[in-house]
């Protein structure tokens, strides 16, 4: 059977905000996806995830877009809009780095449950920006899941010296628990990116 070739990827460019994250940036269009995944009624531990995206010179990137996808607090995927509404949880978030101080991104979500036996809880991440011709995929793991992380096959497949780039650091803030997850595109601390 003849196969069609995949359409080539191109950069998202510097001007995606009014199309992909319009509400966050103050444009007159309602965003389909926002930094808020979890409503107050969502089951599970409510957390904030935040961080910066750094280029190879160590500068925080102000025109990146970060997307996360995850199951709910019990490890169940969200399967429809009605399902998301019923559970108060969308399972998917999108945030540009152009509106918060020092080019941070942020998500308001719940800590994901374990999706399948033997795995540690994790969040799928897609990062794209001007200067990136093909988007990158990574994962957020959680530092307070050391035992589960130690048994996770995907985490183990990453080079040992770079594994820590996939683990978010837990911090306690006045507003509640927060995980810090910085993404380094290059350099000594280059984040592990997956070909998935």
């Amino acid at each position, binding site marked *: 059977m003849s196969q069609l070739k995949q359409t080539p990827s*191109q950069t998202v460019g510097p001007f995606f905000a009014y199309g992909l994250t319009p509400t966050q940036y103050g444009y007159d269009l309602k965003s*389909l996806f926002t930094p808020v995944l979890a409503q107050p009624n969502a089951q599970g531990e409510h957390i904030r995830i935040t961080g910066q995206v750094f280029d190879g010179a160590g500068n925080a990137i102000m*025109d990146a877009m970060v997307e996360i996808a995850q199951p709910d607090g019990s490890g169940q995927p969200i399967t429809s809009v009605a399902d998301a509404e019923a559970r108060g949880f969308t399972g998917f978030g999108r945030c540009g780095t152009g509106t918060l101080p020092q080019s941070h991104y942020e998500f308001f979500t719940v800590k994901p449950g374990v999706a399948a036996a033997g795995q540690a809880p994790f969040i799928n991440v897609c990062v794209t920006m001007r200067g990136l011709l093909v988007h990158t995929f990574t994962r957020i793991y959680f530092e307070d899941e050391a035992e589960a992380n130690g048994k996770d096959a995907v985490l183990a497949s990453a080079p040992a010296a770079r594994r820590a780039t996939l683990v978010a650091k837990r911090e306690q803030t006045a507003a509640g628990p927060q995980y810090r997850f910085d993404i380094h595109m*290059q350099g000594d601390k280059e984040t592990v990116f*997956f070909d998935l």
Partner: protein
Amino acid sequence: MKPDLNNSFLAPRDWTSHSPHIYPGYKSTLLRGPKQPLVPIKQALAQLDAPVYGVEQFGPLDNDLTKNAVKNGDPLGERIIVTGRVMDEDGRPVRNTLVEVWQANAAGRYVHKVDQHDAPLDPNFLGAGRCMTDNEGRYSFKTIKPGAYPWGNHPNAWRPQHIHFSLFGDYFASRLVTQMYFPGDPLLSYDPMYMGAPDSVRELMVSKFSLDVTQPDYALGYVFDIVLRGPKATRFE
């Protein structure tokens, strides 16, 4: 037929179809493209859910960029119709999938606050739209043909006319962000983003003029088909 989600995988990214992460002609890649090799993983389809969304979240004019931001008249420029099919590599339609687009106006100016190009904004044009594919994987937009515009990559650098596209397909990993170009654009061969894609596949990003899609007395029609990664079928032959 639905694949067994726990034991099925997505066809891999075909790196003969995509640019390298570092492409020196496009300067911004130098500090932003990862340098370490990607770590390959096989993630079951069950854990690659695309976001959920529905047409009920859309405005009624979300796929008509000639009307969805009108304040006091029609936007200036050449009206066009852009349509095509979203398919996987086996030609199967990707149904009910989100297609998001954004673009410059007819003068080559983006609404984005960071765009400093000295060309006029159009008060009646936002340049953003979205729609869902139908049962055949088909999408359609009405819009204004975007203008070319200068950028700072190198002396006298101009982006060819293009429309940005963002899709997910059925899975998180089938995500595609791309740009649609126009046939015959003389700027294509000078554009490092376009030229960054492998020679054999570049033209897949160039739409085709279609007289069938063209609506008499209204707008020219362009066809842009999009191929995403799909589930990898196990065949017994």
